[in-house]
């Protein structure tokens, strides 16, 4: 059990810090949340800077254009960029964390050459077309149909929770190619060009009032068969590769951010007098234990993945269950620190964070589903019950 970083790791951190200190002051001003083209340009600009400095695709394998960094280096990267206040991955999220790694793992040489470099360079944006209105927790029940017509698939259906759809160049799309097969066995993974005729994108407003997501309606969209990654009807397996990439270090930056917010809450409470409320103060103390331990659990999981040659373990579900809950507790505590006059003010960041924290126990597998995963896959309890 070693929590000290090796010399190589410390050197990596030092160089990164140095670079961040040099590059961040020169960034253009942040675009407004509603300015989608502006956000695309900003996020891609940041990615281009990372690319030029050699930090793009840090955790991607070298033969996919990545740096082949260790999980620990990736952890350091996420920690330091968050601490320095660097831009979030933003519009590059799906390309860097879902679609890219999937193509790297399952695509042909030609597909890798076509799609991976523009992601790393910050030239192209990907979005994700997985969930459907009737396929949420039960993703494998998706019904968007793809019918083969010569060297094209003709796709019709609707997708939901597609972030950055308005400005994406490509969509990693799951479609049903064999309606007669068992549900997991009739799914195919396609790369859909977002300028293809027949795609309609409609912004989807969340309860926080923002339009981070979109619905996407597909009406006889023609997608070349050459855009298929993996075999026809093998898309579920291909997708699971993607999802496992999502779990490993997905929340590193957020845990760092939560610990910063917790410190700000304490500072604010000391300033406005609410620190004298023993119940609130001890609640913040408890959250300190919670987030410190979540940070250590992250390091535990990263070390495990490092030993396994970079493959994230199942511990991600354990982490997500507790983290999603702790995050909600954190922003509930923030509301207490602010008092009603601040907590009901929609212009306060913490109010929006409190609202958006509600999605953490739902998105990327509800807590109900995560409990099942932990109970069945880790603890070995019987599968498939209700």
């Amino acid at each position: 059990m070693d929590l000290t970083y090796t010399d190589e790791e410390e050197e990596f951190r030092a160089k990164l810090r140095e670079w961040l200190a040099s590059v961040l002051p020169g960034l253009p001003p942040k675009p407004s949340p509603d300015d989608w083209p502006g956000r695309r340009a900003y996020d891609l600009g940041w990615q281009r800077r990372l690319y030029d400095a050699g930090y793009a695709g840090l955790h991607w394998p070298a033969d996919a254009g990545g740096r082949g960094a260790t999980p620990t280096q990736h952890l350091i990267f996420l920690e330091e960029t968050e601490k320095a206040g660097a831009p979030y991955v933003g519009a590059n999220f799906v390309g860097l964390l879902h679609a890219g790694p999937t193509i790297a793992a399952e695509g042909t040489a030609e597909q890798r050459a076509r799609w991976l470099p523009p992601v790393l360079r910050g030239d192209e944006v990907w979005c994700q077309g997985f969930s459907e209105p009737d396929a949420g927790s039960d993703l494998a029940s998706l019904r968007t149909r793809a019918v083969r017509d010569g060297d094209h698939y003709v796709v019709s259906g609707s997708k939901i929770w597609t972030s950055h759809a308005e400005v994406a160049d490509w969509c990693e799309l799951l479609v049903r190619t064999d309606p007669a097969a068992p549900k997991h066995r009739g799914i195919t993974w396609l790369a859909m060009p977002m300028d293809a005729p027949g795609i309609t994108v409609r912004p989807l407003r969340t309860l926080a009032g923002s339009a981070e997501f979109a619905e996407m309606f597909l009406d006889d969209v023609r997608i070349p068969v050459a855009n298929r990654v993996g075999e026809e009807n093998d898309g579920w397996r291909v997708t699971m590769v993607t999802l496992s990439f999502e779990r490993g270090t997905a929340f590193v930056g957020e845990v760092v951010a939560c610990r910063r917010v917790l410190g700000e809450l304490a500072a604010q409470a000391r300033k406005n007098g609410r620190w004298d409320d023993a119940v609130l103060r001890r609640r913040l103390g408890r959250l300190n234990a919670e987030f410190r331990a979540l940070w250590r659990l992250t390091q535990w999981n990263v070390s495990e993945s490092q030993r396994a040659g970079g493959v994230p373990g199942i511990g991600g579900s354990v982490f997500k269950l507790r983290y999603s809950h702790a995050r909600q507790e954190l922003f509930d505590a923030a509301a207490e620190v602010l008092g009603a006059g601040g907590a009901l003010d929609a212009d306060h960041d913490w109010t929006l964070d409190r609202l958006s924290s509600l999605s953490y126990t739902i998105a990327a597998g509800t807590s109900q589903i995560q409990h099942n995963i932990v109970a069945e896959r880790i603890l070995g309890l019987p599968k498939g019950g209700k």
Partner: protein
Amino acid sequence: MDFQLTDDQRALRQGVRDLLAGRFDRDALRAAVDVPGHLDRELWRALGEAGFFALRLPEADGGVGLGLPEAVLVFEEAGRVLLPGPLVATHLAAGTVPGAATGETVVTDADGELLPWLDASDVVLADASGAAPLRSVDPLTPLHRLPGPYAPRTPEAVLLTAAEQLGSAGRTCEMAVQHAREREQFGQPIGAFQAVKHLCAQMLVRTELARAAVYAAAVTGDPVETAAAELLADEAAVRNARDCVQVHGGMGFTWEADVHLHLKRAWVRAGAGRTARETEEVLAAAL
């Protein structure tokens, strides 16, 4: 002892429910959401005509002559449908502020640090000097922040707000159950899964405990009982709205679903009253 609704009380509740279904249906609710800060004066007058505000005035003064238990039933219905406006303040002003009883005059009062509906009101009972607008998290309740000091809320205001919380808690429980019955995943209604079932059962338990507390406080007028009602109703409304979001899954996270309106309103109502800290201290001191 007969701690159940009388036939008259049942009829009153049904009457209010029918009235609101007619005058403030879902379309009206969403229309109100789309124009924040706008108060429908026609609806307000209709409420006045129906006796919503004059409910507890003596019949000799043109009122309905009913008591706090009946008012609680009426405000519970208002909470169910998220009826907007300074309902509690106007109801409490009936008989003292001209026009309040009939719904001609809209009256607001400060709820501690926050003053709702300042711009849309005709009469403001609080000291509104220095009031600064804020962008309310609840699209159905415009708010101003007051510099203070603030007058404490009357026990009636506390209880009627708790009644609205109770109505909201009951409604979000129903919404969750309805969604759980209809939404299918993995080949069956999600309500067949124990995880969802038990969430819904907990919502009902919270609602019924809060109901017992709110109704009892209305009957006895006891301040400690009122504090219990406030605490349990706030908790039921907020917690049920959150669980309702959870049961709705992704759908619950959209603006289009009504469930977030319940959560935000529950936050506003809980924030308007005493803090849990104050309420719990009242309850502890009474031991």
